[in-house]
């Protein structure tokens, strides 16, 4: 499970997922320069309505399969919360960085 020395990127997509068709929001939760594991990462739509939630991995990584549009990614952690807006114009990988604490 160690990701030491790995190039900076999200965890590999499952083999059955076609990034050419899916709108993938791929991101990382950090506090300073440190990845934050176990943050509750919430995806909110353009109206602020909750859409989905995942827990960040040991490397702080998270991923959503969304649709084109404006999104807010909000992270909750016992050390603090943070959020960032994302604009996804179409299918493909969209990088997201959220800072907490």
């Amino acid at each position, binding site marked *: 499970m160690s990701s030491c020395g790995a190039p900076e990127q999200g965890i590999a997509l499952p083999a059955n997922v076609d990034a050419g068709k899916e709108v993938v929001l791929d991101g990382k939760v950090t506090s300073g320069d440190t990845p934050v594991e*176990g943050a*509750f990462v919430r*995806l909110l739509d353009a109206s602020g309505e909750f859409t*989905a*939630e995942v827990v960040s991995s040991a490397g702080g990584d998270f991923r959503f*399969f969304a649709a084109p549009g404006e999104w807010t990614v909000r992270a*909750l952690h016992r050390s603090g919360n943070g959020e960032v807006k994302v604009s996804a114009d179409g299918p493909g990988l969209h990088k997201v960085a959220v800072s907490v604490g």
Partner: protein
Amino acid sequence: MSREDVLVSAAWAEENLTAGGVVFVEVDEDASAYDTGHIPGAVKIDWRNDLQDPVRRDFVDRAGFEKLLSARGIGNDDTVILYGGNNNWFAAYAYWYFKLYGHRSVKLLDGGRKKWELDGRPLDADAVTREETTYTAQEQDLSLRAFRQEAVDAINTKNLVDVRSPDEFSGKLAAPAHLPQEQAQVKGHIPTAINVPWSKAANEDGTFKSNDELRELYKDAGLDEGKATIAYCRIGERSSHTWFALHELLDYSDVKNYDGSWTEYGSLVGVPVEVGA
């Protein structure tokens, strides 16, 4: 029923971790969460491996439920406190199974794993063993469970509450946004359903909103309190969460969970489907 009969706070739970006759049970879709850390003394139920039929699209039968609870050391007289990840989705689903099979005392931990973790309360990875019991379940209480024909018959006659996200309801997405979107079923919702996403019943930390807030939420969305209600989502877990809010917290009398949900309905030939908000 009062809120205290069906829901416990994280503070209460922490004070009662070793209380006699109380069993904490973690229920998750991703069972690895339990293995990395769980509420001290809690046993694990794996939603997929323990609660789903391994072959058919259905869940554990009465004999299987008896075997599972006996093996986990849960007795008929124990008070079971269920909790889990995903804002208690699968714990609420398990709660519904416990009610279907007639368990007398079962409660949800308000906020589930999320609230527990955000509060910084203790977790450990110690192995938990409880002495095996001889558990006796009842026949399924079908006043709590809707099947597909009831969902079709409810169009224009009962409250249908679609608890998926607005984008799933309108047909923009086929599944929650943390899952891949290619699915066999068509997109859309059951005609005349109102859309009240499960998340509106919960606060950001995963706890349920107050009864006053919940009552107003469903009323404003068009729920007729004088009619029977069927809740559904994609696979029946988020709708268990809303079923809990409507039937257990608000005490509405005739509320069923349609566990076949959109995975089944969206695959049926010949039934009406609506798209758009």
